[in-house]
């Protein structure tokens, strides 16, 4: 039957954001021209060019690191911790005040649904600053050993999936612990970081405390390899993480890595089934599956497989794919042509290897980068879609018969970032959670984040934690314990 209740378009107004035709680098409290070429950042939902952004060269990075060093030595390091905290509180408030602007800009540049940027990314980013603001003058009581001291200048490289939120995860703890930063946002999503630079100015943050150098891989490499950087923090692919770990080898730089994942989402036959289905959907389709901790491997107990898959398909059939700025959109655009190509390649391989592809009937816009929500059944652990991180809206379904088999399959990966467990049996939750080799275990929920809650991986998903007391140690000398 035709759907009587058609939701009329409900677009968030984009007039709230004012995107300049071009942007320079934010160094020492000023926007300055870079010495390199500039590059275009596009709206992945329309392929419209949003702005031209400077590509930072090694020389630009050097200028930024020197500014950060000066600010560290003269202003930020010596500052009363309580005052550092107050600056962070200011930033938190400014993010809240300008939340709508950030949300729209994030959706434009990244392609994520406005509902998520508005309800998840931006509020969590503000929460991260608010949380860490409070730590600034309480580090002596954080239980991290005697007299924790900042490291100096932090070089931070962040991904495109949560541009502002990842900035907050990096900048807030670094500043709260007394470090200054040089941050490189992702090439395809630089705009919210540049708007954040304006927030730093509105907060009267001393020049040089936060420096933002846009660019691609070369710019990131220059940040990582700069000899006067004391700390490197990276979120992104395991492959790049490896090269960064190699690059900082032999130096005194402290390194934290938050890398890829291939999380198992385990559904037992006694699960709260409707919430489990929601959790599966939230686990893999949140942010188009561009989530390192996405629940991309559904491990479902064989005796409820058909029931779960039927419910899942019915639920996926109601997902709304389309204009990221429409408030009713559930799944937005794939972030880039390159990422779309990778998703297509891996899903084609999945089919070629014998897994069954299922996609709901859904109309995709003609322009822009789009991929429908996809479920692969009949997936075997040997298939590449069961092993490789797709980083897209693609779920691989595997089955298990016993709890031991579930754990063995869940742990059978080189990654170890997150995992999910769905069962109404409390004792089983604790046992399975204990056995899973993953840094974050969501039981009867999925993809929840909070600044007080340490996040990070086991195995090749990286090391170090972000958030909570544990996250502070990444930015402190001699802090040998979280």
């Amino acid at each position, binding site marked *: 039957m035709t759907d009587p209740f058609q939701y009329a378009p409900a677009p968030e107004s984009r007039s709230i954001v004012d995107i300049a035709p071009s942007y320079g680098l934010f160094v020492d409290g000023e926007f300055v021209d870079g010495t390199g070429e500039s590059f275009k950042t596009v709206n992945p939902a329309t392929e419209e060019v949003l702005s031209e952004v400077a590509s930072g060269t090694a020389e630009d990075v050097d200028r930024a690191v020197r500014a950060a060093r000066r600010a560290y030595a003269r202003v930020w390091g010596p500052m009363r911790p309580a005052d550092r905290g107050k600056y962070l509180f200011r930033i938190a408030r400014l993010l809240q005040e300008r939340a709508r602007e950030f949300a729209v800009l994030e959706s434009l540049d990244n392609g994520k649904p406005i509902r998520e940027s508005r309800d998840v990314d931006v509020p969590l980013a503000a929460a991260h600053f608010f949380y860490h603001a409070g730590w600034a003058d309480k580090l002596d009581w954080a239980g991290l050993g005697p007299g924790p001291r900042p490291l100096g200048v932090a070089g931070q490289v962040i991904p495109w999936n949560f541009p502002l939120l990842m900035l907050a995860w990096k900048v807030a703890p670094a500043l709260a612990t007394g470090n200054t930063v040089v941050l490189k946002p992702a090439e395809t999503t630089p705009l919210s970081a540049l708007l954040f630079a304006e927030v730093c100015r509105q907060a009267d943050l001393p020049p040089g405390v936060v420096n933002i150098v846009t660019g691609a891989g070369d710019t990131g490499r220059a940040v990582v390899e700069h000899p006067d950087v004391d700390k490197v923090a990276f979120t992104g692919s395991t492959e790049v993480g*490896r090269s960064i770990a190699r690059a900082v080898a032999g130096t005194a730089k402290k390194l934290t890595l938050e890398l890829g994942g291939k999380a198992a989402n385990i559904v037992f036959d006694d699960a709260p089934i409707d919430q489990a289905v929601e959790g599966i959907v939230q686990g893999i389709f949140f942010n188009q599956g561009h989530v390192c901790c996405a629940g991309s491997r559904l491990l479902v107990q064989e005796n409820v497989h058909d029931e779960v898959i039927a419910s899942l398909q019915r639920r996926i059939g109601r997902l709304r794919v389309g204009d990221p700025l429409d408030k009713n959109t559930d799944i937005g655009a794939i972030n880039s042509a390159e990422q779309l190509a990778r998703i297509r390649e891996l899903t084609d391989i999945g089919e070629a290897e014998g897994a069954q592809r299922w996609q709901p009937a859904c109309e995709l816009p003609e322009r822009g980068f789009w991929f429908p929500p996809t479920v692969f059944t009949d997936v075997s652990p040997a298939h590449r879609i069961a092993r490789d991180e797709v980083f897209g809206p693609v779920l691989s379904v595997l089955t298990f018969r016993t709890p031991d088999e579930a754990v063995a399959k869940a742990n059978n990966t080189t990654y170890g970032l997150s995992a999910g467990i769905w069962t109404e049996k409390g004792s089983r939750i604790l046992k399975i959670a204990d056995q899973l080799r*993953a*840094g974050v*275990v969501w039981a009867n929920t999925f993809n*929840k984040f909070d600044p*007080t*809650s*340490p*996040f990070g991986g086991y195995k090749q998903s990286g090391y170090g934690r972000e958030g909570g007391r544990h996250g502070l140690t990444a930015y402190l000398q001699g802090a040998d*314990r979280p």
Partner: protein
Amino acid sequence: MNDRLAVRKTYKLYVNGAFPRSESGRTYEVTDAKGHFLANAARASRKDARDAVVAARGAFAKWSAATAYNRGQVLYRVAEVMEGRHVQFCEEVAAGEGLSQSRARAAVDAAIDRWVWYAGWTDKLGAVLGGANPVAGPYFDFSLPEPTGVVAVLAPQRSSLLGLVSVLAPVLAGGNTAVVVTSHQRPLPAVTLGEVLATSDVPAGVVNLLTGDAGEIGPWLAEHDDVDAVDLTGAPAARALELERQAAGSIKRVVRPPAEEPDWAADPGLSRLTPFLETKTVWHPMGL
């Protein structure tokens, strides 16, 4: 007067609870500080390292799942058994490191006491390093430390017993299993420690001791995909950079070598425990 001819000990590897010779059949001469022959030690090969990793991986599930109280008692038992071999350790340390009897005794005392220190840590780590996280929502959220997995340890080259215990005991206290490359020139106390471990309720495979050259075996361990962390404390200075790069291949946790070997008598704090601990965070809703 005692004219009995002493029965000498054959110094072998300690792998998976047994004392094999190197599969390569190689040995090397170990001398005292003055260059006098002490013994022939087994010279571990890459295949010995491989076997040791298999043993350590095999032992991990049970050792990491043992109760903290149980692990603490096992580590304390190591101290007890070492105490009974005090004289032997003193002789080996004195000979190998060229120390006076009194300084050798101090080193052995400290090594035994270090086991006691870490034995007491096992059941405190969860409380000190973990906690509940007050998230903004109806969830109970807690974080706990968990062992990283299989740790390859390049033990200090100079401090052959105290240094070794100082790097090994924290790895075990956290619930990891270990593959240790001992001091190259001074391996004998390590082999004797293996004999202690074998009789101290430490399950087979939890500790594997390879005598030989860290410069030769180190790269195999640093590159081994089934090793989760490497402690480069005893890495030859010239090789440390390359070892760290190799460890990057599988995103190993790395403890970089100090500029020079530290004073192992100093209070270690938690600095050698936390590098080999992961933090696991668990969320659960709170509803009716």
